[in-house]
């Protein structure tokens, strides 16, 4: 039987650098395969090539991809996309048409005409599949990151494709939501849909996929049954990825809070408030994790603290002095002191500015650094987030998803903040890079007394790095206290979440 998907010696280059090198693998109908690999190892490039698409600057120099007997490159045959292959991109934030309401996007994704009367029902059903309430009348910018990601998933599932190419489809999801999506995908797989699932989170796909492919530096370094690869990895890359390393002892930091917020009420337009009476404080050198389900208002809280969203009530203090909510009314020092790393790294970087420019601007505006030191500082910053220095002169479009995320983080660090608010900054990172980055943040806490507000849906991450925890449910703070108490190391992740949410 010929496989549904066959990649043979596929080679893609960007400039002179190969980003996918002689990749060969096959995928039978109904088979589920996970692809994993370090950030920047060529996973997204490979996925796009399967769909017959090359990003600007990337060229196809050899090999082929054949799907259902049809070559995707150089020009994808009609019906390949959408009908045969459903796709979920890595960047949900910039995947949705900003001019169409969610309902319209989903109806289009069904690929057929839906009678006017049935439309609302169809949309609601599609959203329900991925665990979302009826958000059909919203525009993409009115959704939280996790909601956007699930909408994209719902759109990919809408047309019953035979192959699903999923590029890190659960990075913005909390465990409950992730479990729902994974369950839905498992159902699909059982029904005979082939899955090609790019992920860093091998734990949660284990129950779905049959095989795992590990990529490193554009090559396939390992390809085997899931149990073999996960439990007995051969390649050093795979070994490396699978030894999740990061463990930092949580400490109890004392002293006055650097940032203290109280009584925050925040709403969008005339909708009901997203946040009600939320307060938090974080001390120098402390890491406060904010945990909560998707769409609960975590990003709203982050944006509010950063001065980008005006709450309707609440007070804010920085180093014991009152801090204005409006970014325009903050002084230069105050702007530098509180930095935000946003949830959507694709939009956070100007598409026409190089990484270097992005990193230099905070140096120019917020730190009085002589120009001669820029180059050195940029190098240091890139190094801190584990990015090679040669990336400095690339545009965001020429970076992988994880690389962009790290550039955004480096840009925030460039301001030498006292408090850094991180909104899901490790979601697109493989375990190795993730623990590197988290370790780096921990070092900064110790060295410079940096305070961190870490927004995450991943209790694992919260448990590893944070000192204290704040749980948001229904727009309110429902639990707060030392991490060790709220997330006892003895419980499994699922248990922890159930536990936390049930108690609130």
């Amino acid at each position, binding site marked *: 039987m010929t496989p549904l998907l066959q990649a043979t010696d596929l080679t893609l280059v960007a400039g002179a650098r190969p980003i996918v090198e002689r990749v060969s693998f096959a995928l039978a109908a109904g088979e589920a395969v996970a692809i994993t690999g370090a950030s920047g190892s060529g996973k997204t490039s490979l996925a796009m090539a399967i769909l017959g698409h090359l990003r600007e600057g990337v060229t196809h120099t050899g090999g082929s991809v054949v799907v259902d007997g049809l070559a995707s490159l150089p020009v994808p045959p009609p019906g390949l*996309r959408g009908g045969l292959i459903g796709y979920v991109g890595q960047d949900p934030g910039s995947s949705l*048409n*900003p001019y169409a309401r969610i309902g*319209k996007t989903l109806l289009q994704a069904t690929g057929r005409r839906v009678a006017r009367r049935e439309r609302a029902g169809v949309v609601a059903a599609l959203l329900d599949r991925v665990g979302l309430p009826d958000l059909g009348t919203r525009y993409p*910018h009115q959704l939280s990151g996790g909601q956007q990601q699930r909408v994209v998933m719902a759109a990919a599932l809408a047309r019953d494709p035979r192959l699903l190419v999923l590029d890190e489809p659960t990075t913005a999801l909390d465990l409950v939501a992730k479990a729902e999506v994974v369950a839905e995908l498992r159902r699909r797989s059982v029904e005979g849909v082939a899955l090609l699932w790019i992920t860093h989170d091998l734990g949660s796909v284990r129950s779905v996929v049959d095989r795992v492919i590990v990529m490193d530096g554009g090559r396939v370094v390992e390809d085997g049954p899931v149990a073999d690869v996960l439990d007995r990895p051969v390649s050093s890359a795979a070994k490396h990825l699978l030894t999740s390393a990061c463990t930092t002892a949580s400490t109890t930091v004392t002293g006055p809070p650097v940032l203290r917020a109280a009584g925050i009420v925040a709403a969008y*337009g*005339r909708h009901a408030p997203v946040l009600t009476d939320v307060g938090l404080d974080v001390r120098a050198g402390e890491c406060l994790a904010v945990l909560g389900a998707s769409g609960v208002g975590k990003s709203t809280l982050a944006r509010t603290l950063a001065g980008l969203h005006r709450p309707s009530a609440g007070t804010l203090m920085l180093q014991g002095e009152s801090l204005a909510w409006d970014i325009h009314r903050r002084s230069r020092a105050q702007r530098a002191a509180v930095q935000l790393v946003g949830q959507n790294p694709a939009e956070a970087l100007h598409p026409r500015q190089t990484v270097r420019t992005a990193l230099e601007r905070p140096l120019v505006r917020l730190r009085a650094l002589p120009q001669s030191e820029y180059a050195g500082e940029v190098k240091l910053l890139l190094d801190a987030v584990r990015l090679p220095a040669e990336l400095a002169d690339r545009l965001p479009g020429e970076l992988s998803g994880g690389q962009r995320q790290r550039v955004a983080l480096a840009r925030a660090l460039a301001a030498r903040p006292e408090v850094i608010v991180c909104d899901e900054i490790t979601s697109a990172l493989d375990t190795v890079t993730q623990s590197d980055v988290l370790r780096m943040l921990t070092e900064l806490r110790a060295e410079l007394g940096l305070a961190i507000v870490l927004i995450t849906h991943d209790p694992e991450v919260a448990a590893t790095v944070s000192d204290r925890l704040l749980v948001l449910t229904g727009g309110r703070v429902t639990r707060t206290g030392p991490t060790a108490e709220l997330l006892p190391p003895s419980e499994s992740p699922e248990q922890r979440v159930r536990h936390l949410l049930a108690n609130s």
Partner: protein
Amino acid sequence: MTTAHPVLRHVAGRLVTSLCLLAGLSFLVFVGVELLPGDPVSSRLGPTATPERIATIRAELGLDRPVLTRYGEWLGGVLHGDLGTSSIGQPVTTLLSSRIGNSALLAGLAIAFLVPLSLGFGVLAAWRRGRTADRVISSGSLLLVSLPEFVVAGFLVLVLAVTLRLLPAVSLVPAGSSPLARPSVLVLPVLSLLLVGLAYATRVIRAAAATTLRAPYIEFLRLSGRSEAEVIRTAVVPSVLPVAVQVWLLTGVSMVGGAVLVEKVFGYPGIGELLVTSVQTGDLPVVQALVLILGAATLTVLVLADLAIIALTPRLRTGGAA
């Protein structure tokens, strides 16, 4: 709680501002026209008038009184619906009534064709960027843009009317009837206005659409198998509309009062030429009335254009920017 509320408040505010602008404008123009070289009386009487007679007539018409006094009187009249009397003694209202309709008709027709055509050509050119269709549309529109409207109009007359005899060369409209009674006389004037406006609108829309087509969500829509038609319809067109609407509305406004040359070439009875002759002969009451009416129309359209930006930009519409 309705969402229309803040928008209504915004509109009300804008209308009040517009009224103030209009009042200020009318005053400035009243004084400004006064400053223009040439004197209404001597330019009307021409070379046969002696300086003494000019002086007498000026006094008779009250033109020697202070500007402020005359402005006050005029404004009082306007508030009572009286736009004054033209220098040859006709009430300005009757003078303008049929012509305004004719001009609006001309501009309206031109816009009715302009909107779909410019959108179609502009988006098509952007979509086929660098291909033959784009080259044809881009260079065609560029060429048209470089030609002044009187050259375009003159060329159309020469070919379609004088040589081929397909259409009337001049828009003869019998006394007492409207141009609509003889639609054939509208074709060439509308076509001339359309071509010039079309070139401009197409270029701007092409550029806007080309920018959108490089956005990541377009790439994603394509990757998820949306047909090109769908991509264009649901993503590209909505993204160019805010800009396109500005161009359409402002072009339309300028066609009402600014179709001077086209009106002249075709002898079309609109207000563009009336405005120019009135300015040149210093027929103050007519200029005043026209500025007032065109100004009011323009400001209304501008408010609409602003609302269009809000209505067509999701972030603004939902963000309560009104």
